[in-house]
């Protein structure tokens, strides 16, 4: 199924959970590197350059949010946050720290593998999309090369932010509901947490819009979803 074995960095302080998740995720076809705390995580990031990071919020040396922000400084690797609670604070804080998705314990390896694969997927243009590069005003989105330009300036988007923008772009100005975006970008059924979309839209606006407080490209359709306009 996979051309290359994907490198997964597993950051978890409980050694039993770490051991069992490594075994279970290796069964799912990943190559797993373990880290027991934040500093091990950051050094493993430099040594192994993983394809995806599974990051527990509760770490002995520092909290997962700051580790995530540290990772985001020089990497767009997909990060899945393992939160203690699903209440607003942990989830939104994790997403705002730059996480691409979140899961809560008890984690089951099959579900976890599905989440990881969804994040590693590439943007898939629909059949009628012939153009490789879509233009929205001063924004230009390269579906093939993953390069987003605003004027002549190249924008640094994470993988997930790019796929979200590409999904909006492929709707060609039409409204994308949160559920649609959750399904297409994160691979959720219809029970995904729409806060994931909302926080990513906020992050996307900070990078794409000249004035993120008054977005001109990524526009909210109240109660319905979002759309991308030129």
């Amino acid at each position, binding site marked *: 199924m996979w051309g290359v074995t994907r490198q997964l960095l597993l950051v978890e302080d409980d050694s039993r959970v770490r051991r069992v998740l490594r*075994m*279970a995720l290796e*069964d799912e076809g990943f190559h797993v590197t373990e880290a027991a705390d934040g500093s091990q995580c950051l050094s493993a990031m430099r040594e192994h350059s993983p394809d995806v990071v599974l990051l527990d919020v509760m770490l002995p040396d520092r909290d997962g949010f700051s580790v995530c922000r540290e990772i985001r400084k020089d990497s767009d690797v997909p990060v899945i946050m393992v939160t203690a*609670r699903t209440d607003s604070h942990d989830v939104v804080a994790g997403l705002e720290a730059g996480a691409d998705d979140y899961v809560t314990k*008890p984690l*089951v*390896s099959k579900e976890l593998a599905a989440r990881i694969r969804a994040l590693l997927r590439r943007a898939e243009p629909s059949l009628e999309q012939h153009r490789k590069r879509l233009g929205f005003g001063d924004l230009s989105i390269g579906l093939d090369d993953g390069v987003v330009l605003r004027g002549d300036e190249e924008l640094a988007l994470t993988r997930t932010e790019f796929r979200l923008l590409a999904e909006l772009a492929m709707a060609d100005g039409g409204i994308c509901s949160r559920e649609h975006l959750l399904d297409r970008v994160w691979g959720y059924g219809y029970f995904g947490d729409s806060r994931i979309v909302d926080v990513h839209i906020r992050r996307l606006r900070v990078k794409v819009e000249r004035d993120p407080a008054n977005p001109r490209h990524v526009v909210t359709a109240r109660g319905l979803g979002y759309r991308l306009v030129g």
Partner: protein
Amino acid sequence: MRRREARLRTPSGRRLGLRDRVSIAFGLLALALSALLSLIAWGVVSQYLVGERQSAALAQADLHRSLLATGIVQRKESVALLLNGLPTNGATGATAVVGGRWYATSPRVQPATLPNELIAEAIAGETATQRIRLEGGLYLAVGIPLAQSDDAFFEVFPMDETEETLRTLSWVLSGTAAATTVLGAAFGRVASGISLRPLNELNAAAAAVAGGQLDARLPTGDDPDLTPLALSFNRTVGELQHRVMADARFAVDVGHELRTPLTTMLNSMQVIKNREDRLPPELREPLELLESDLERFRALVVDLLEISRHDAGEQLVLAPAAIGRLVRLAADTAAGRPVTTIDESARHVTLSVDKRRLERAIVNLVNNAETHGGGCTGVTVRMEDHHVAIEVDDKGPGVPAERRALVFDRFARGSGTTSGGVGLGLAIARRHIAAHGGTVRAEECPGGGARFVISLPLARP
């Protein structure tokens, strides 16, 4: 105290309310005071009026007596003629005894009509008055001695006018007393209403607390009579809230502590399952049992966290949502087939909801219909006045009327069923719906089976 309680009851045997008792007390007090004042007023006025009448009558009688005496002495006229010649001036009649002989001017005033004591006193040389009844009317009889001993002059004056005045006065005073009584009772009612207002606030706050709104507090204000009550109520509720929250947090903590070992167990099970073909056949059955109970354990921990997180005060995440579509996606996904019908009336209804929780409630009801109700036969969304009704029908045995309120309790089990587990699903559904200001109830489905009805208000309270 017991005796008072026994006395202050309504005819139907119910104990009278405080306000009724205060009104009655004020009414009785007003009645007593006004009756006393009326009696005093009546006494003073009647004494005055009667006294006035009496002295007027005496003066007139004395004048007539002197005319008579003068006539007898100077003109030696007949006593009968003299008597008849006296001016009447409102007197009913006069009579006199002169030299042992009685003379009278009017058939109505005869010696026989005069009281004996009056005659005796006058003859004995004393001026006397006495009130008498004559043909039903009240009269004043005056007896005055004449110059000769044993001779006396008597005159009778009507007291109708005085009596009429006094009667009117007594009516007025009685009416005033009655009006004062009613006013007193009304005042008592208003005053007790004002003083009971803090109690009503207390009642409302206590009801809110009982209804689960543990952050309800009384305004403490600066009233020295009420502040201690409000403070002690607030302190009690505060402690109650603290305990409830502590219990809820304990459940949350237990849930969290269970998550880590559960993660180890579930994934170890998965690793074993991945190598199932290498296991000796006799281990397959225990493994299957272990796996299914592990799954129940997982569901229980997830549900426990879901319900206790809410108790521990987690806030709703509200956003507008097209309600019909939300229900269709949740119910159809949970049932694994299309089951939802959206009535035309609910097609364009948008509500501000916590999407995750509402979905969870609907999924739990559909799962309940699937596992305990013989399968979900349909989910209907429709508008009823001011709220959205979501009905989840099944074709199971239904819920007996006496169990309909109980099925939403934590860990309630279906009657007579031993299968299927720990019932937190319906309890969670009820919490989540209640958090939206709505209700959920069990009914009988017209075609047999159970119907669970969620009712969500259009405007949140």
